[in-house]
């Protein structure tokens, strides 16, 4: 992957708003809720999605982009994109806890599967729909 900073932002928001949202809507009813109402659980899972988008765009993407400048290829290997799920999971967890009690294993199940799914779509199938994205540094609006 060879993202630009604009491309990182567009890909993150577009993918979380489509693939991430669909998966969250599907998975939430299946998560252990410890007696919480489904509506409250949806509120938390959708909030987790929004936090991942926001904190990622504001905090993490600029850091990744800065690190990328030290690479000759000016690329971001797909392995990095996969592993950064760990640090982003941690920040999302800490921010989300400010809004209410979050069952840890439910969070891990939701975050890890969503991250994996989005990563998989980005490294391959997205090209079927967005033919030009691999040439636009990850920008989706003109892909």
């Amino acid at each position, binding site marked *: 992957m*060879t*993202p*630009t900073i604009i*491309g990182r932002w567009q890909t993150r928001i577009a993918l979380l708003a489509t693939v991430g949202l669909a998966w969250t809507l599907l998975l939430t009813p299946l998560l252990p809720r410890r007696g919480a109402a489904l509506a409250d659980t949806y509120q938390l899972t959708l909030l987790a999605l929004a936090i991942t988008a926001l904190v990622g765009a504001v905090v993490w993407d600029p850091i990744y982009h800065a690190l990328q*400048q*030290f690479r*000759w*290829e*000016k*690329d971001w*290997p*797909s*392995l*990095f994109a*996969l592993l950064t799920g760990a640090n982003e999971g941690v920040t999302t967890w800490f921010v989300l806890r400010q809004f209410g009690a979050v069952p840890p294993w439910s969070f891990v199940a939701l975050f890890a599967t969503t991250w994996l799914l989005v990563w998989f779509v980005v490294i*391959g*199938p997205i*090209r*079927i*729909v*967005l*033919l*030009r994205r*691999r*040439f*636009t*540094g990850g920008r989706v609006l003109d892909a």
Partner: protein
Amino acid sequence: MPSSDEGMRNGHDLMEMRRPAGDLTPELLNTSVWTDEMVALAGIPIVDAPFVTVGGGMGSFVMVDLLRIAGVPASSIRSLSNIDHPWQTYEYLTRCSQIPRHERIRSDSSGCPDNIWAFPSYAVREAWADKTVAPLASVALEPVVTDYWTPRAGQVFTSLGRESARIGYPDMLARGQVRMVRRRRDGGYFTILTPPAGTSATKRIAYRGWYVHLAVGYPGLQFLPDLQKYRAEHGDTTRIVNAYEPHEHVYEALKRQPCTVLVRGGGIVASRVLQRLMDDREHHGARTHIHHLFRTYVSGKHGDSVFSRRKGGGGFAYSGFNWPKAAWGGQLKERFERLEGEERAALYKQLGGAHTPQRKSWQRQKERASTGGWYQTYQGVITGMVPSTRGGIVSDVRPDNGSPYSLEADFIIDCTGLEGDIREHRVLSDLLDHSGAGRNPLGRLDVERSFEVRGTANGAGRMYASGAATLGGYYAGVDTFLGLQYSALAITDDLSTRGFCKHVGPFRSTAQWLRWARNRPVD
């Protein structure tokens, strides 16, 4: 006595009689803009083809493939070519430069000339075909843990054959040698084809169309001037060879008796030739001693700043592909697009030079060769060459530092890949003289960001170019699979704004991919 007018007419008539039917006339040769009448008067049959691609190699194929996906019928496209199938020249060059079908080429898994979506990529397809997850693990871990995964040459050619049949490429192929492209007074262009002897009633055929695409490949490979001089002076064409030419006789000779070989160059071809020499020594009984001469010797990481450090060592500069990956579709691509003139040329210089991938298996082989004392590297420029007393060649070398020295070898393999000027290509040369085309900051054909050849627009007609001839433009990776796909996409997008084809947006792209996946014809 006939009057002078009659004499001239008779002379002209004689010339007409001598000239084969339907050939170029002096009037056509000397006129930059032709009319339909001029062509008809010369007896050259006119064939209407709205889109003509010249070359018929990889560049033409990728272009045609995308146009078909964008809804252009096969009847509107002609590929003018002197080869039977698009990968013929590429296969010839890779085979000569020691990449037979079972070996891996230097191309990303997602550089798929048979599949504009690059999904599934070559790695996924190899994993599926061979029922193994190894290629998938490799691309997932590259380049951090593993080397870049690259496809086997044979996989690429097989996939191209499938796609060629799917889009009906053979039906669009017109065999022959393209002589020139000239502007037409009423818009568009005439592309003059010389069909193979005996296949046409006339010597030439004129293809009249609105859009012309030039994908003529490398303008021509050159020998280094000193090697050329030696060959000419001593009539020796067997001991000094170019790596891009057939030179199997060298490897065969090396297996028969102990010899010394001088390899020149530090790029991918040099590393492939070295690997072949080392393989033959390690597995086929050769006792070859290798001298390796670098013009620029790279001893370690190099670059202007911490933000542009390239790996290197043992003479070689190391880079996974022709350019840093972001040149194809990231921040470096955007930078190239913003730069003009000297600034763009400077970026090319900064990122370019000879380099090769740092493949682990080959590094180990090279280390064994160095330790064994049969592989030695040198730096310098050759100042002269003379035949040696024992039948080989002695090269006088001037290094950047230190005293001049001599290297004796039985064979010299030139892997420098020196490319000729675009003037050496007849069609491009004619274009520079007659059709308003110019040169870019690297001296190649000047194209716009849409790959339109700058200065050649003619009414509603547009001329495009892609491939090596356009190196130096706003896009660096032009002579790569991925670059050919990008240029084809840019041209198709431009043509869709002109109404020649459909825009390939998300819906059409998905629908066409589904057809590709099921190997159904384009729609």
